[in-house]
């Protein structure tokens, strides 16, 4: 059963990865990174059970934390730099 969930999470990760690669806007990428991070938290939690040593869930905590901080960081720097130089125009990616 853990297997099924693991596969589901992995599939979700792969899809998010594609979204992060494809964009097209910056916010899509940020969203994808965020989703990817949450899924990683889940993956770590499940893999802990799968491998029979679920007591190391602290790592999942760190993932969740870092995920949040990264998203805030991206937003923060993007908002800050957007009125500035080259960061304002998104060329639609080919």
């Amino acid at each position, binding site marked *: 059963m853990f297997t099924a969930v693991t596969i589901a999470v992995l599939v979700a990760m792969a899809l998010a990865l594609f979204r*992060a690669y494809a964009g097209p806007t910056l916010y899509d990428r940020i969203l994808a990174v965020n989703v990817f991070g949450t899924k990683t938290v889940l993956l770590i939690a499940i893999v802990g059970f799968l491998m029979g040593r679920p007591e190391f869930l602290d*790592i999942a905590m760190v993932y969740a*934390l870092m995920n949040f901080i990264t998203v805030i960081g991206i937003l923060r720097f993007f908002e800050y730099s957007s009125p500035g130089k080259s960061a304002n125009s998104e060329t639609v990616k080919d």
Partner: protein
Amino acid sequence: MESFVHVVIILMLVTTAIAIVRVKDLFAVTMLAGIYGLLSASFFVLMDAHDVAFTEAAVGAGISTLLVLTTLSMTGRFEKASVKPQADYRPVLALVLVTVTGALLIYGTQDMPGFGTADAPVQTHVVPRYLNDSATEIGIPNVVASILASYRGYDTFGEVVVIFTAGIGVLAMVMSNATKMPVVQTALMSDHVVLRIVSKMLIPLIMLFALYVQFHGEYGPGGGFQAGVIFASAFILYAMLFGLTAARNVVNHTLVQLLSALGVLLYGSVGVVAMINGGNFLDYNFLSDDPVAGQMLGILLVELGVGITVASVMIIIFFTFTARSQKEGEAD
């Protein structure tokens, strides 16, 4: 099942890496690099390397992404699209070089002991002592922590010094010449009310978590380095939401610098005290009458030293970068 996850993660790593090569938008590259960090951390969990996964998640996916982003906010977001014709030889040259190196490595893997075999030299020489005797010699269950802080404690001392060196380097290069901070800055994310409230709730939790990681390192994954990064991330979060000036009011710049030095000194002085008590450098057995108690004490102290230095250097690096980017923003 484990092998399946293993293969999938590895394939995702490759995909991410290839995507990084292809994408020109450096913000996207940074985010993909963050994903790469998360993926490799998941891989480390799968390989039973929880401590490493912990660190990689905090560093690869967290801190280094933030640092690159700060730099990008100063240098601009896009890689120059067109490569001049005369530079065209470079991809070919690089490809040749990379192929040769890779081929040599693949040649080298042929005689390596099979993946996961229990009778490989790596598992039969040196390591058994750590696994069998560390419980009696050091007295803590996390073998990684006992090797890190005691058996190979000197490497870790070097590691702390490396971090300290990086802090010094960043200060020496990027520190603004003016001692006073740039004038009042607009509170940057003032319109994100929800964000600010939630973060205010989170920051104490994060600090508590950092303390837990710091002092729980002997029993599970964690330790000074991870705790330091998490602790610093609380301050970084604060600085991002409430502005650098506010954050500087909480942690004074001079104080952080002193702390970064004190962490190294704490580590070093544990070693020197051991020397004065008649042992070798960093021989914790001499810290107390009972060797195991001495080891426990030594590990506690050096981990604390690591934590202090790492946290303060991370704060230094991040704050220095941010201050520089704001100064530059004004100059425009």
